[in-house]
């Protein structure tokens, strides 16, 4: 293709995005667009899959049948989200196996929040309330992102996430209206999950890369700091209703800004976890790798069986 032709295609492509039309897999797209989307979408898919583990940790110990059923359903939804997202990513010409390989080798990232341990039942509530809450704020704008398959996957994901978020909040509410011991459990979970949740929006704007390009492609509509502020403003009143305290001495309503002011985030911790040194990075990755390796013979068998069946059909047809 001549340089001019490419330029022409690029213009059409940019105009399409500007008009809020979707880019579809068969459409021409710049290589960088494709790569960025593969990276972000697969990272998103990996987060769903790794995100099953901290919550999965409480399935066998859920405190009631109702909660056990809800938790199983939630973790199952996450597997489903992973599935949509891997499928959507595959439309960009990369296979699910390649994406898994990137996850298992440590090349691909997933959301750092899942590298914290779930150590009490209240953590299941806190994850639903805070982590899913933060995820929704990050994700709702993606329902209108430019890449069609991603946008459509996100519509389904967001609907379910907001259900999960309400469910998580309801767990917290039950604890906070329960015994003193239960309320303490809820407070303790908030103490441990609050700061990592704020880190889910990524580094501060001045340290964040890709933002401008992402804005143009509608992979982002607001900056990290804007989203973080939105999360805090939305979540603090919810904590007040629960009657538990956000673990931030500097947190207070700023009448002038119309927002909450808040304390300094421990970015050292953030980067440690991103670099793979969080409390559970090793365990999470190892668990995924084990599941994959232990499943190899099963996948091989399914493949071999399918081939045998196909052969039989061919023979019958002949």
């Amino acid at each position, binding site marked *: 293709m001549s340089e001019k032709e490419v330029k022409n295609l690029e213009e059409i492509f940019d105009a399409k995005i500007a008009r809020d039309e979707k880019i579809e897999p068969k459409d021409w797209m710049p290589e960088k667009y494709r790569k960025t989307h593969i990276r972000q979408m697969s990272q998103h898919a990996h987060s769903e899959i790794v995100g099953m583990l901290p919550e999965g940790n409480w399935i066998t110990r859920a405190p009631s049948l109702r909660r056990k059923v809800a938790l199983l359903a939630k973790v199952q939804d996450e597997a489903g989200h992973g599935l949509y997202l891997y499928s959507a990513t595959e439309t960009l010409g990369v296979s699910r196996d390649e994406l898994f390989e990137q996850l298992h080798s440590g090349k691909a990232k997933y959301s750092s929040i899942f590298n914290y341990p779930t150590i009490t039942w209240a953590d299941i509530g806190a994850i639903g309330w805070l982590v899913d809450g933060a995820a929704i704020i990050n994700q709702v704008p993606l329902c209108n992102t430019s890449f069609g398959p991603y946008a459509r996957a996100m519509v389904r994901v967001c609907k379910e996430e907001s259900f999960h978020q309400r469910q998580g909040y309801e767990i917290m509410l039950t604890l906070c209206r329960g015994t003193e*011991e239960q309320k303490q459990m809820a407070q303790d979970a908030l103490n441990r999950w609050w700061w990592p949740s704020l880190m889910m929006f990524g580094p501060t704007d001045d340290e964040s890369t890709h933002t401008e390009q992402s804005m143009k492609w509608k992979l982002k509509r607001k900056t990290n700091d804007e989203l973080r502020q939105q999360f805090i403003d939305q979540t603090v009143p919810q904590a007040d209703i629960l009657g538990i305290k956000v673990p931030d001495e500097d947190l207070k309503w700023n009448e002038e800004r119309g927002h909450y002011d808040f304390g300094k985030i421990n970015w050292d911790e953030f980067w440690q976890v991103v670099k793979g040194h969080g409390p559970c990075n090793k365990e999470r990755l190892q668990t995924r790798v084990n599941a994959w390796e232990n499943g190899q013979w099963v996948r091989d068998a399914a493949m071999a*069986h399918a081939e045998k069946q196909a052969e039989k059909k061919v023979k019958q047809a002949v």
Partner: protein
Amino acid sequence: MNKEFLIKYIYGIADNALILGQRLGELTGHGPTLEVDIALTNTSLDLFGQVRSYFQYAAQLSDEEITEDDIAFLRTEREYLNVLLVEQPNRDFAFVIGKQFLFDHFHFLLLTELQKSHDQTLVAIAKKSLKEVSYHKRFSSDWIKRLGDGTEESKQKMQTAIDDLWRFTDELFHLTENDKKAIKEGIGVDVSKLKETYYKNVAEVLEEATLDVPELNYFQEGGKKGIHSEHMGYLLTDMQYMQRTYPGMKW
């Protein structure tokens, strides 16, 4: 009508779903593919859904003020009446599928018959559950075929699992004294009559899967009398942990 026998009869059915559901719950997030992970979690969900229906009914029948959770989480090991088969550990995927397959085929026949019970609540639960269980049966049978007639390795693993688990199948058809009473009252299913069909159905799938049908002249039993394998205790320590640690609280 003496309700005690009915409550115990319900436990005898529901505990199988409870313990198998619990075992499946251990696997969520660890499946060989995402699709299988989702399907097995779904089976677990179905089973726990059935458990809730049964235990809500049992709680309602009870003279004591108890809930479905008291029944699920606060009995001692000797009071769980599930068969030994369902409590067996998930040694590998072949054991998971083997256990599921050997139970699903029984479960399907049981629920089919339970639809004829004189107890209308049990009939309703059976009807609803039967749709789910026929899906479970198809899923596990399909995997038996895939693994049996897949690779050399998968065939050997699947055969090992079936050979090992086979000794727990006979217990499915044992009748306890309580079962006999439930049958006499027109409420319970005479599972001993399902045996022939069961082994015929199971053998058909195994044969299609190019697997050998085990020939055993001895079997294990005990679960129906609350005498479980040593695996059961550890399953219960996890399952009961929250209810035991924080008695009387709402979640």
